[in-house]
């Protein structure tokens, strides 16, 4: 029974970590879907999401009384959640704008050039975002304001689930639901899907590709920002380089699920999160950063299209 409890506990930890990777991976996969290139700077959008929350919170902390509640009670739950939700939505909006601007300034002029050029530019953008943040706000870790009280959720027996982990999982499910709604039920979503099938045919059908690409960047960046806020609720220490590793791991998740495939990205994120938690749980915590790369190498060697991806034929 204890063994089972332990497994369930690790699964919950893995799912909450994996949700973060899934949210970031969605941005990689959507951008890859429409532009066929890896947005190296995506992990830094996640970092900027956390930083926008950090900078925004003081403006609202008086009204929403951040950090003043110790526990969730039936009376204050709605109040706390609306405060945290507001910060999250604002950060998502800010990062969506940043994402669109990056695409407009750095990537769009290179659209007809080979992918390698855009990749190098993306590395440049990534370095720039990290270092300009470091320069403006300092390289030292900052304490993220406490948006929601973090404590163990009661009534689950011996299972230790933190409110922050629960928030991550619930918010991710909600965001995925909204994303699916946007992609499957709106005109913009239809245009995104059409664009990823065939850009030329898509623009011949009267779709303005530029607008769709901008929208995709906005959507992906907003999801990454949400991930940044959610992760900072759980571990409230943020620094300018925090986007590096999660960014690469989320990319691995996107490749694992089949890059360009939206459900695949979510699935890949969960798998990477659970694997990482398991590596720590069975006693190799120092290898947790290596496991994602090992997965990447194995997947690229044996099934480069990923779990849910369709094979792409090389045209000569």
């Amino acid at each position, binding site marked *: 029974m204890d063994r089972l409890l332990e497994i369930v506990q690790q699964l919950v930890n893995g799912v909450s970590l994996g949700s973060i990777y899934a949210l970031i991976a969605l941005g990689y996969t959507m951008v890859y879907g429409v532009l*066929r*290139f*890896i947005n190296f700077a995506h992990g830094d959008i996640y970092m900027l999401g956390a930083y926008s929350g950090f900078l925004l919170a003081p403006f609202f902390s008086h009204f929403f009384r951040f950090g003043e509640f110790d526990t969730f009670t039936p009376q204050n739950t709605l109040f706390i959640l609306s405060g945290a939700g507001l910060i999250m939505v604002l950060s998502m909006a800010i990062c969506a704008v940043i994402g669109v601007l990056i695409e407009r300034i*750095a990537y769009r*002029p*290179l659209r007809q*050039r*080979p*992918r*390698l*050029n*855009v*990749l*190098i*530019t993306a*590395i*440049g*953008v*990534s*370095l*720039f975002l*990290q*270092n*300009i943040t*470091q*320069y403006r706000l300092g390289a030292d870790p900052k304490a993220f304001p406490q948006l929601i009280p973090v404590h163990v959720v009661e009534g689950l027996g011996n299972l230790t689930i933190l409110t922050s982990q629960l928030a991550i999982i619930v918010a991710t499910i909600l965001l995925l639901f909204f994303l699916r709604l946007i992609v499957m039920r709106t005109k913009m979503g239809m245009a995104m899907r059409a664009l990823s099938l065939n850009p*030329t045919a898509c623009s011949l059908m009267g779709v303005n590709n530029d607008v769709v690409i901008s929208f995709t960047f906005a959507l992906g960046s907003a999801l990454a920002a949400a991930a940044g806020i959610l992760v900072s609720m759980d571990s409230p220490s943020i620094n300018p380089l925090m986007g*590096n590793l999660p960014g*690469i791991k989320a*990319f*691995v998740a996107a*490749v694992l699920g089949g890059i360009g495939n939206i459900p695949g990205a979510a699935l890949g994120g969960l798998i990477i999160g659970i694997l990482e938690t398991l590596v720590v749980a069975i006693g190799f915590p*120092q*290898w947790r*950063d*290596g496991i*994602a*790369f*090992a997965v*990447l*190498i194995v997947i*690229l*060697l044996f099934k*480069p299209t990923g779990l849910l991806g369709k094979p792409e034929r*090389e*045209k*000569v």
Partner: protein
Amino acid sequence: MSRALLILFAALLVCLSVSIFGENFIASRYAYYYDILITIGINVILAASLNLVNGYTGQFSLGHAGFMAVGAYTSASWSNHLDPYIVGWLGGAGSPFATNVAFLISMLLAGILAGVAGFAVGVPSLRVKGDYLAIVTLGFGEIIRVTILNTDFVGASRGLSVAGSYTNLFWTYGSVLVCVYVVLGLVHSTYGRGFLTVRDDEVAAEAMGINTTKYKVMAFVVASFFAGIAGALYAHFKAFLTPEGFNFFRSVDVVVFVILGGMGSTIGVVLAAVMLTILPEVLRALSHTQFVPPAYQGLLENRLILYSLLLIILMLTRPQGLFGDPGAIRKRFTRSGGN
């Protein structure tokens, strides 16, 4: 003996004499410049060797620091554990002959082991292309770093102090010369044609019966070998190694040298490495003068802000780099047909 080889030996002789007669003078009188001089040499080796992969063969590797780390740690551990015996056997610690031979052995070993690592990484990862290859090599670089971080024998996260600061002007610039000679020699040989065809059109090269994997792996192994040599020089120059010294940003540094210089132009890449090693020092000196308001000092001292802007602006305006051949690049960078 060919003319190129004659030039190489003449240049090596010059290095040797400068090292014998001027080394102590420069190192003691102008320690700061000496430091920069050696760093330039190491960076040039890294850049010229990476250029073989990223420039001539057209594969985008982001893991050069990993191979440098293999070399650095190999040569450092070798020197720490076996140098006393080798030096003692060759004639004692006082003899320059003994220490230099010991260093040469450890350097070659570092190169060979890094080459082996390059082979082990190259064979599987060169099956993927373009941006995937970039991420896979980045991943391997990180795996090498994490492995060092978890290996107690080489000091893990505590770092490793290196016995014997053998690196001097002769070994540094001798390696630079050999590296440039080998790279240029390779590129202008049959193998070089192989590299270039892989870069220009892989599918066509395969259709012509060229074993593209062979050429890619070969470029990768040679580049790793020299990265290992650079690592050995670095180890015996800094005398202290930490895994953090070989992280992703170190690889990015080298990639920036190659891109600024112009992928596939050895002379350009060498010049870029020299320029970008000196530039941060100049900017640092400049930032402490009265011309720069204190608020902007940090901006000038942070080389990565500069590098990142350089990358973006170069890609937008001059993707062939400062010294690259626009013609060759145009051929390579225009996509034929769809996709």
